[in-house]
């Protein structure tokens, strides 16, 4: 496939790995923010190609992982109500709430459906006018344009039976929050290419400056990641701390304007709790008053009790880059994809899951 295969070329990967080996002189700890990149790294064994002095740590960039248990419970509650069809991306189906996941709600008779696009949920609402269709809108900035359009279209089409349970989170505040932590030992970041495709990367420029840390906008294929690492290490070795763009074929500095416009019309920025991390100011999106009629929390008024994170799970520390999955005593023993204790194990993009799937035996 064009624009994929070229960036999986083993020869190019070898050259980049060689370059990294030749460039690096000191130990560096680099976080790839994005779960998709984590997955790619572990699946393709990219870390095996790196000099020993480069340590990759895995960031909070899996929106499924950081969705609070309370919100999953809320989705589960809604899915159990008579007449509701709860739609969700496949990723969310196996993520455990405090006592079950959406797949078991479905097994017990709830009408839970997997969709490929939020627009599929809108269409379903049009077709089933007698049912309430709720879309569980999990995502980072990348998914916001699709979710914004779904709400916008629902409004244009006058649908009264469509609503959205919004769990939209924003990356820059999370990166900043990691950098504010005293324990962090991260020297550089690979930024998520698709988030920046939508948002551009101007928001990261003050961060690079304030925290003196290089941030490289990076794609998702092995060659992209190695290339991003190379650019990052070059900055580190030369003492620079800039935002650099590896993923130029998709990302521009200012991002996708039409998408940003609709996002701003439909959503506004709010503080948000991140599973395992806690509340981060201005790190989430919520529907603006113009669209609040489509807010599932308004329509279903479920107020779940606050739920404690499982005591043994260190997924919060993993999401902050403080620990690796293999540091967790539960990993692979009491915590497996079949019976996950934390969301980093159950989401396919979670770091624990990636380690379990590709490394554990």
């Amino acid at each position, binding site marked *: *496939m064009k624009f994929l295969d070229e960036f999986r070329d083993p020869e190019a990967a070898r*050259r980049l790995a060689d370059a990294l080996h030749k460039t690096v002189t000191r130990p560096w700890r680099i976080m790839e923010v994005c779960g998709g990149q984590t997955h790619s790294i572990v699946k393709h064994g990219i870390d095996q190609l790196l000099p020993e002095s480069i340590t990759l740590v895995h960031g909070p960039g899996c929106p499924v992982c950081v969705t609070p248990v309370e919100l999953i419970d809320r989705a589960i509650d809604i899915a159990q109500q008579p007449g509701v069809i709860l739609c969700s991306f496949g990723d969310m189906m196996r993520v455990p709430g405090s006592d079950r996941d959406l797949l078991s709600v479905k097994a017990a008779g709830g009408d839970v459906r997997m969709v490929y696009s939020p627009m599929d949920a809108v269409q379903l609402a049009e077709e089933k006018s007698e049912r309430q269709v709720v879309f569980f809108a999990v995502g980072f900035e990348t998914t916001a344009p699709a979710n914004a359009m779904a709400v916008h279209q629902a409004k244009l089409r006058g649908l009264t039976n469509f609503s959205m349970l919004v769990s939209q989170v924003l990356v820059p505040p999370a990166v900043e929050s990691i950098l504010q932590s005293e324990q962090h030992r991260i020297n550089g970041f690979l930024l998520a290419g698709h988030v920046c495709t939508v948002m551009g990367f101007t928001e990261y420029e003050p961060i690079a400056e304030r925290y003196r840390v290089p941030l490289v906008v990076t794609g998702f294929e092995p060659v992209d990641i190695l290339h991003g690492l*190379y650019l990052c290490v070059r900055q580190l070795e030369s003492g620079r701390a800039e935002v650099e763009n590896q993923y130029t074929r998709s990302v521009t500095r200012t991002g996708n304007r039409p998408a940003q416009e609709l996002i701003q019309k439909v959503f506004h920025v709010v503080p948000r709790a991140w599973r395992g991390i806690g509340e981060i100011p201005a790190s989430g999106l919520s529907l603006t008053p113009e669209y609040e009629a489509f807010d599932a929390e308004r329509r279903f008024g479920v107020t779940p009790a606050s739920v404690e994170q499982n005591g043994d799970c260190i997924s919060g520390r993993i999401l902050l880059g403080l620990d690796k999955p293999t540091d967790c005593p539960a990993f692979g023993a009491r915590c497996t994809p079949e019976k996950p204790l934390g969301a980093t194990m159950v989401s396919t993009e979670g770091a624990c899951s990636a380690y379990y799937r590709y490394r554990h035996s």
Partner: protein
Amino acid sequence: MCLAIPGKIESIEQGEALTRKGRIDFGGIVKEAWLSYVPEAKVGDYVIVHAGFAISRVDEREAHRALKYLDEMDRLDSPPPEPEEE
């Protein structure tokens, strides 16, 4: 996060800018996507598609620049590619 892959626009269903849709070919399979956010994209262009929406048009020149750079990478002293325009 945010699985998004490049595909080639096979055809475009004309309509208003915001509701424009196209059929996208991903290595032999074809699926419809919304083109609302890539008003500049035309048939034959590659777009990056996520959750049923094209979120960018692939900048082929940039892609080739990057690949060319990688090709020539054995000359380690060569500078990394910079975007041509900001």
